[in-house]
């Protein structure tokens, strides 16, 4: 169920980027757990292509922050075996686009080993993965692929929309005894090379450790006319859309899934049952995607709660074009969300 965020102890907060907040959780868990280590390309000397591991090699040494060859199948397999033998690997795959070279090792072995072994072996392994476009990185470095990972069983997948969730969800992943995937949109992260992050992605983050339960969506904004479901960057698109819609007298509720797997089906349905209208915004491809599943949840629980057809604002089923006008046309932006909401309001008033 969707829950408000608990307030942090006064005085123990700072405003952080998602990158720093997520890193803070990794530092904290690494300090607590000597069996935890980071493995991936460019994580040691460079500190991660996205800065996820800056400062870690210095503190934890090359034995726990391991630069690898460009051999994803190999080092994911190695990380999985290490996890089966008592370690707690954190595997960085900079771009989700790359999972195609190592997908077997993820879904056929790592994700299934606990089940196939009847619980004899645990695989406490966390992936840190970046995704998303909107900065002209073209067809092989801009994908989202939530559903590609979410469709195969045995993996828990989260994606934070702000720094508070970045830290809490990272801690939840690192403390979990299963294969978990912490995915973050490159444009939210606060990378050195994508300008300033969205202001709303920054958040006041408590210094103390805390976790956020899997499968618990977050209501960023209450509303009565329509539910806009988003995750990651689309939460911020939805919030902007909601503000503009408010000025036109339309009250939109913004629900952030936070977890792709497990999915907060109750939370989605409860909100839609309340508002009677549904728009889902997602940067992943449309078909067989996150938007499909969210609509299906309503259709199989009670389609009569819908006062109007639900609308999907997803990435169309085409590769990501390089050229700016073409990519901008495909992205699930504020304008498309507003238009979608208005289409659900037709007839009303």
């Amino acid at each position, binding site marked *: 169920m969707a829950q408000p965020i608990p307030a942090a102890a006064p005085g123990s907060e700072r405003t952080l980027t998602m990158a720093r907040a997520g890193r803070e959780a990794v530092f904290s868990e690494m300090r607590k757990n000597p069996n935890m280590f980071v493995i991936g390309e460019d994580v040691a000397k460079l500190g991660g292509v996205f800065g996820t591991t800056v400062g870690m090699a210095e503190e934890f040494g090359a034995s726990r922050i391991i630069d690898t060859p460009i051999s994803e199948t190999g080092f994911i397999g*190695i990380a999985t075996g290490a996890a089966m033998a008592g370690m707690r690997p954190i595997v960085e795959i900079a771009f989700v686009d790359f999972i195609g070279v190592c997908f077997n090792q993820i879904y056929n072995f790592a994700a299934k080993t606990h089940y*196939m072994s009847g619980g004899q072996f645990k695989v406490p392994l966390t992936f840190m993965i970046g995704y998303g476009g909107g900065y002209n990185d073209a067809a092989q470095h801009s994908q989202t692929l939530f559903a590609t990972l979410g469709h195969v069983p045995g993996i828990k997948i989260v994606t934070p929309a702000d720094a508070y969730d970045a830290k809490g969800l990272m801690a939840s992943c690192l403390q979990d005894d299963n294969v978990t995937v912490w995915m973050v949109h490159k444009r939210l992260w606060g990378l050195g090379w994508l300008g300033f992050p969205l202001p709303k992605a920054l958040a006041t983050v408590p210094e103390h450790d805390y976790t956020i339960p899997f499968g618990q969506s977050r209501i960023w904004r209450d509303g009565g006319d329509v539910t806009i479901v988003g995750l990651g960057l689309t939460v911020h698109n939805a919030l902007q859309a909601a503000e503009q819609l408010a000025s036109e007298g339309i009250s939109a509720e913004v629900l952030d899934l936070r977890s792709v797997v497990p999915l907060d089906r109750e939370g989605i349905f409860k909100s839609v049952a309340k508002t009677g209208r549904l728009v889902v915004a997602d940067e992943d491809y449309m078909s067989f995607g996150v938007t499909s599943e969210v609509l299906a949840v309503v259709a199989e629980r009670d389609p009569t709660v819908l006062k109007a057809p639900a609308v999907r604002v997803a990435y169309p089923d085409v590769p990501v074009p390089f050229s700016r006008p073409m990519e901008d046309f495909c992205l699930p932006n504020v304008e498309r969300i507003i238009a979608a909401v208005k289409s659900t309001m037709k007839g009303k008033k």
Partner: protein
Amino acid sequence: MYEAMYRSRRLDDAVLAAYMEGKTPVFHMGKGPLPGEMHQSFGQEPCAAGVCVHLGKEDAVGAGHRPHHVAVARGVDLKKMVAELFGKKTGLSGGRGGHMHLYSAEVNFFSSGIIAEGMGPGAGMALARKMQGKPGIAVAYIGDGAANQGAFHEVLNMVGLWKLPFICVIEDNKYGVSVHKKDSTAIERNSDRASAYGIAGEFVSGNDPDLIFEAAGRAVQRARSGQGGTILELETERLHGHFIGDSGGYRPDAERKAMKDPIPAYRERLLADKVSSAGEMTSLEAKVQGEVDEAMRFGRESEYPDATEALKRLYA
């Protein structure tokens, strides 16, 4: 070693018989008490026995889609293993795994059905021991066909780079299903590929348990003493088809006729060399046969899991 080889063989004999139950007149893999694909180890027993005899409790072993002989030589509980083949609740994984997915945490053993998929996890278990400062090495079994899969290359490069205590055993039975090694592999000896990874490579011809034992001893010694990894390529023989149901019609008759069964040959040698007497041998065989019969009975008579168990144990 003979005991492990003989145990695996008698197990495969018993499994073959049980497998055919209910699958005739029209062969249907999904019927009978032992359904599913079944890749047996007839002829490859020396590769398992000669290597695993060097291993201790702290070591780890990964096998592939043809795991029986390796599991037996590693000392996986025979009753639980057979129960798993029958899909029973008393099986290693309570019936969730099956023949290609045998896991035994007790003895750090696993197997998996995707080609070369066990290479990384095997090497990862070796890395874990290194990181934890614990003794122990890891061995991963693959076939000659698997040596052309990308995982082989990626993992062995890291084994060489990080000097992992790891042995890649290649069971060279000359075939990947129907494709002969000369039609799949650009060079004669996969052990020669070791030079691409800065690790040791050894080839043992003849499917000879004693020669395998010696070469494996050297590889294990290298791994334990921090000298790193080895590709241990073992010439062996797939006496049956790829799986039960494959007649192997693609193999030349001459080649088939020339196939030698390593077990009777080794038995004779042990007798000839007076390593053991005919009496000892027969009683050993009787004992092993008894264990296998007992395991088969256990597997057959155990209960099936509750169907709803299917939805449990997805997550720890």
